[in-house]
């Protein structure tokens, strides 16, 4: 068994697949450098991401998989789970080593794992499309921050670009410390530092940077949320299943 350490990127995984064929490695354990703990008795091989290797593997996969599966591959990668990195590596091997159609063999644990992770990431993407709550700032930008389980910003960017084409907006991922900014033309990746008064622990921006009408509308939304409820049919179990508690902190209707 060989231990491969890679940089945690998609190119890294694909390069690792290339290298493993080149080195004729039969059994590989793939670890991202972030999760790697050096071990005195284990030989490690460091994968250096290279574009042409990654592209060749990616194109190889395209030849054997349809578009849907390529998307699944990418979405599972965005989960950033250590086990999923290994699964994707093994999955690529399984696809290359077998006849076309192998991806439909859900009896294979790796195929199953990749497709299940894709479902999870997809669900998180859909939740973010639903649970993002913009606040209008004084300079007219609509701002929201999130802290999703998986790295879904690349997946939701199109949805928000199409939908909010006539307003500037920022969606910032606090966990991964980057965000998307739409400037009425295109979406860009941005990073910024929070000042102490705009600390990330706040679930809302401080009043002085907000549009004067913002308070009214978030209040009206809270009112609406309350009056559309039917108290006699209260069912918190069902409510929490649909809106899990970990998302409450950034939902304006859930703030007291």
């Amino acid at each position, binding site marked *: 068994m060989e231990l491969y350490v890679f940089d945690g990127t998609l190119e890294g995984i694909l390069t690792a697949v290339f290298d493993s064929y080149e080195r004729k490695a039969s059994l590989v354990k793939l670890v991202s450098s972030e999760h790697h703990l050096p071990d005195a008795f284990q030989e490690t091989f460091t994968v250096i991401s290279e574009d042409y290797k990654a592209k060749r593997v990616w194109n190889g996969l395209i030849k054997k998989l349809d578009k849907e599966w390529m998307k699944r591959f990418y979405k599972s990668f965005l989960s950033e789970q250590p086990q999923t990195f290994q699964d994707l590596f093994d999955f690529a091997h399984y696809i290359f080593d077998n006849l076309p159609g192998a991806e439909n063999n859900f009896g294979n644990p790796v195929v199953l794992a990749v497709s299940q992770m894709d479902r999870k990431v997809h669900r998180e993407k859909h939740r973010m499309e*639903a649970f993002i709550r913009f606040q209008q700032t004084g300079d007219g930008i609509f701002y929201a921050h999130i802290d999703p389980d998986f790295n879904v910003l690349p997946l939701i960017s199109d949805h928000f670009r199409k939908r*909010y084409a006539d307003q500037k907006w920022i969606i910032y991922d606090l966990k991964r410390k980057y965000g998307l900014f739409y400037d009425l033309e295109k979406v860009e990746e941005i990073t910024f530092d929070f000042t102490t008064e705009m600390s990330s622990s706040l679930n809302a921006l401080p009043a002085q940077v907000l549009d004067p009408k913002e308070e009214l509308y978030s209040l009206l939304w809270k009112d609406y949320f309350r*009056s559309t409820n039917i108290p006699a049919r209260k069912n918190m179990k069902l409510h929490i299943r*649909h809106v899990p508690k970990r998302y409450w902190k950034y939902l304006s209707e859930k703030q007291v």
Partner: protein
Amino acid sequence: MFERIREKLEILADAAKYDVSCSSSGSNRKNHNKGIGDAEGTGICHTYTEDGRCVSLLKILLTNHCIYDCAFCVSRRSNDIKRAAFTVDEVVELTMNFYRRNYIEGLFLSSGIFKDGDYTMERLLRIVKKLRVDEKFNGYIHLKTIPGASPELLHEAGLYADRMSINLEMPTEVGLKLLAPEKSHEDVKKPLDQIQKSIVQYKDEKALIKSTPKFVPAGQSTQMVIGATPESDKRSCIPLMLSTKIFL
């Protein structure tokens, strides 16, 4: 001002919350004009009430003043409740501001009837028109048809709404006469039939002329109360058969 709009929203959201419809899917309206909104494809539930129902649309009445006295309705004339009415601009502004903050997928607009059908329908029409034309809103709009409104108003509303609906209220004419003596199934069937025919007509024309505008792209729906009057299940099925006739 602040307080009044809050009170209005409270009254008129409360009055609309028993309406079953909340779907925001089924339309195919894209953001084609660099405006705001996109109602293509699947719906999104932006939150859920504490009783576990999906909140996808801003579901409100324009007013809960009503000239009718239907026994099954909270807004009936004889009921002693607080009354309120939004202005056209208030509804437009609420919808736009909620939508811009990603609170909702669109608007579900119903209304009690003040004065007469046309007077009310005209206001509903002005709201959807303003949203679509002035605000370039491409989100989802579900509009309730007011019984007794003229066909011209219905037709124009159909050009702006994604889904329209008018309620049969009761499975049988006899039951309806018992609980809502001022209404009749004839008043409902006519608009249902008109919208349906127009949908078919626009679809046919779309096949020939690409620039044919959309007409109620998510289709129409209806609702009725089952179990309030002593009809048997067999009798209740009659309007279902009738509705398949209308819808297919």
